C-alpha cells in the first residue's frame, strides 16, 4: 500500500476545501489529479504532505505517517511564490534536492554536486548551471525545479501544476521524465490543468471537486459522465476532452 488517504477533510473558516476524501494507491503509477479551479487539488497534495492542518481524517504513506517518511517524498510546489531575486544559481537550486538526504548540518559534497549536474543534464540545462535563477526563461525555471525533484531520489513524487505556463517543448521534456520515473518503479501524482492531455499522459486519474468524484485507471474512470460530475456544465472543456477521448478510442 503506497498511499492511503482516509476520510480527509480540510476546511478554511468552516468552508470545506476537501470533504471526506478516501483514496488509496496500491501500485506505482502515474496519477493525474484534475478538477475545476478551487476544487482542492493543491490542497489535497498539501494535506497528504502535512503542510495544511486536517479538520478530520488521516493519511499514511507506505504504512507510516508522512513525518516519518520525509526521505521518500519528492515535492515540486507551484512556481508563483518563488523569489526570483534570491541569490542562488541553478546548480544551487538543484543541490537543494539533496539536502533531505544529508540531514542537519552536513554540507553537500562532490558526490552530491556530481549527482546534481547529472540531473541538470537529464533536463537539458547542464550549461546553465552557474546562472542565477532570475535570468532563466519560464520553461527553463520549471525544468530546474524538475531537476531538483529528480535529485531528491524519492520513491513518490508530488507535483503541483508542473506544466502551468510552459511551452510545448518543455511539457514534452517533463512527461518524458515522468515516464522514466515511472519505469524506475516510482509513483508520481501530478496536479494537471489540461483535460485534453490527461488520457495521453496518465494511467490513473483522480477527479476532484471538493469531494472525490472518481478515481481509478484512466480508461475506465475518465468518462464523459464523470467529467460532467466533476466540472458540471462547462461544455467547452468537456467537448474538447470528449473529443480527445473519442479520438483515442478510434485509434485503438
Amino acid at each position, binding site marked *: 500500500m503506497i498511499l492511503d488517504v482516509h476520510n480527509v477533510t480540510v476546511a478554511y473558516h468552516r468552508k470545506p476545501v476537501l470533504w471526506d476524501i478516501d483514496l488509496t494507491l496500491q501500485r506505482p503509477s502515474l496519477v493525474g489529479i484534475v478538477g475545476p479551479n478551487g476544487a482542492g487539488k493543491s490542497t489535497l497534495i498539501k494535506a497528504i*504532505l502535512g*503542510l495544511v492542518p486536517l479538520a478530520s481524517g488521516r493519511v499514511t504513506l507506505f504504512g507510516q505517517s508522512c513525518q516519518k517518511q520525509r526521505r521518500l*517524498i519528492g515535492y515540486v510546489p507551484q512556481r508563483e511564490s518563488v*523569489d526570483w531575486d534570491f541569490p*542562488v544559481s541553478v546548480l*544551487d537550486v538543484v543541490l537543494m534536492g539533496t*539536502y*533531505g538526504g544529508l540531514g542537519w548540518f552536513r554540507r553537500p559534497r562532490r558526490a552530491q554536486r556530481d549527482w546534481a549536474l547529472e540531473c541538470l543534464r537529464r533536463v537539458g540545462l547542464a550549461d546553465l548551471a552557474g546562472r542565477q535563477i532570475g535570468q532563466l526563461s519560464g520553461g527553463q525555471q520549471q525544468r530546474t525545479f524538475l531537476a531538483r525533484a529528480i535529485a*531528491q531520489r524519492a520513491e513518490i513524487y*508530488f507535483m503541483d501544476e508542473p506544466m502551468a505556463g510552459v511551452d510545448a517543448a518543455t511539457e514534452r521534456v517533463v512527461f518524458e521524465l515522468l515516464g522514466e520515473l515511472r519505469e524506475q518503479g516510482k509513483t508520481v501524482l501530478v496536479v494537471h490543468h489540461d483535460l485534453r492531455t490527461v488520457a495521453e499522459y496518465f494511467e490513473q486519474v483522480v477527479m476532484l471537486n471538493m469531494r472525490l468524484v472518481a478515481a481509478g485507471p484512466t480508461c475506465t474512470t475518465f468518462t464523459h459522465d464523470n467529467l460532467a460530475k466533476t466540472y458540471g456544465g462547462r461544455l467547452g472543456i468537456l467537448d474538447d476532452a470528449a473529443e480527445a477521448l473519442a479520438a483515442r478510442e478510434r485509434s485503438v
Partner: protein
Amino acid sequence: MSWPDLATLDASQAFWTIVVGAISNTCCAVLGCYLVLRRLSLLGDAISHAILPGIVVAFLLTGQTASWPMLLGAATVGVLTTVVTHALHASGNVPEDASMGVVFTSLFALGVVLIALAPSNVDLDLDCVLMGRLEEVTFPEPWLGFEVPLKFPSLLAVLGATAAFVALFWKELKIASFDPALATAMGISAAVVHYLLMGMVAVVTVAAFDAVGSVLVIAMLIVPAATAHLLTDRLGWMVGWAVVVAIISAVLGYLGDVYFDTGVAGMMAVGAGSQLLLAVFLAPRHGLLSKLWHRFMLALRIVSEDLLAVLYRFEEATSETRTAGVPWNLCRRVAGGGLAAWLAAPLLWWRGELRVAAGRLWLTQQGRRNAQSLVRSHRLWEVFLGEYFQLPLDHLHESAERIEHFIGPKLQERLASDLHQPGRDPHGKEIPVVKDADNDTSRGRE
C-alpha cells in the same frame, strides 16, 4: 567644527571603538542577510524594539547588560515576539504589518516607561536606549593578559556564536529562506529554522545594544544586507559583502563622531546609508548607472549596425553609391537619430568600417562584410517567419529589424541550412553571401 589633528587622537580608544562597533555590526549584518531575503526586515525591527523591557529588567536586577542569562532571556523574548506576531496575524486576522506594529510599539513603550520609572541612580537613560554609548564603552579592563573594554569578551562570544550558527545551518537557512514549503516537505522544518533565526537576532540585538542602542540596530540588520544584495548574485558573496559594509560603517561612524561630534551610532547609520546609495547607483550589474550604461552601449551597437545596413541597402539600390557615398544626414535620419547615432559614425570610422569625407560616408571592405552579415540575418529571418508561420509580407520586416542584431553566426548557419540555403527573401531581395576575410571562402553558397 574643526578638523582635529589626527595625531592627538587616542589610538587605543579609536581602535577599540572601531573594533567593538565592527563586531556588533558584523553580527547584525550577517543575520540581516536572511531577514532581507525573506522579507522579514521589519520583524527584525520589531524584535530589536521588543527586547527593550527585558534589557531594562535585567539591568535593574544585575546591573549590566549582555550577561549570559540576559542573552538567553533575549533569545526567548525574540522567539516569543515572533510567535505572538504570527498568532495575531494567523488567528486574530490582524494584517501582518499591523500585528508587528502593535507588538513592538507596545513592548518598546513598556521598556521606556520602565527606564523612566527606575530609580535615578540606575545608569540607564533614554539616550542610551536610542544610540547606545559606544563612546563610553571603551573602558579598558584586563582580560587574558590584554586590556580590553568591558563588553569585548561577550561580544566576541556572540560573534563566534553567530558565525557558528550560520556555518552550521548554512544549507538549512538557504533552503528554508528560498523555498519553505519544500524544506518542510523534506523534513527540514522551515518553522524551526525560522524561530532559531529569530532567537539569534534577539541575542545579537542585545549584544549590540551597548554599542548602537536598540533603534539603530535595525540599520545594521538591514542596510549592509540590502547593499550586498545589490552587489552580487551569490549568497556566500552577499554575506561577505555585508560584513565589509558593516565594518566600513563602524569606521565611518567613528570618524563622523570625531569630526562632527555627533555620537558614533548615528553616524554609523548614515555611513551605511551612504554606502547603500553608492551601491544603488554604481553596483556593477544592478546599479542604476550601470544599467543605464549597458542600455546605452546596447543602443550604440544597434544604431551602428543599422547605419552599416542602411549604407549597404543604398549600395544595393544605386550602383553610384559605391563611388559617390551617402550624405551623413540622410544616413543618420534613416538609421534613427539620437545621441547614439551621433556617436555611431565616429565609432565605426575608428573601427575601420567606414570612410568619411566631405560629409559623406562610404563602406570599407570590412564594413561591407559586416553589413552583409547583418542583412543576411535579417532576410533569412524573414524567410523563416514567412515559411514556418505563414505571416503576411508586411509583418516580416519589423520583427526582422529587431532580431537581426541578436542572431549570431551559429544561428545564422542553422537558419540557412534549415531553410535550404535560400537565395531570396520573401520581398524578392537577394540574400547576401558573406565572404570570409582570411581564406575567401564564402558562407551561404557551396
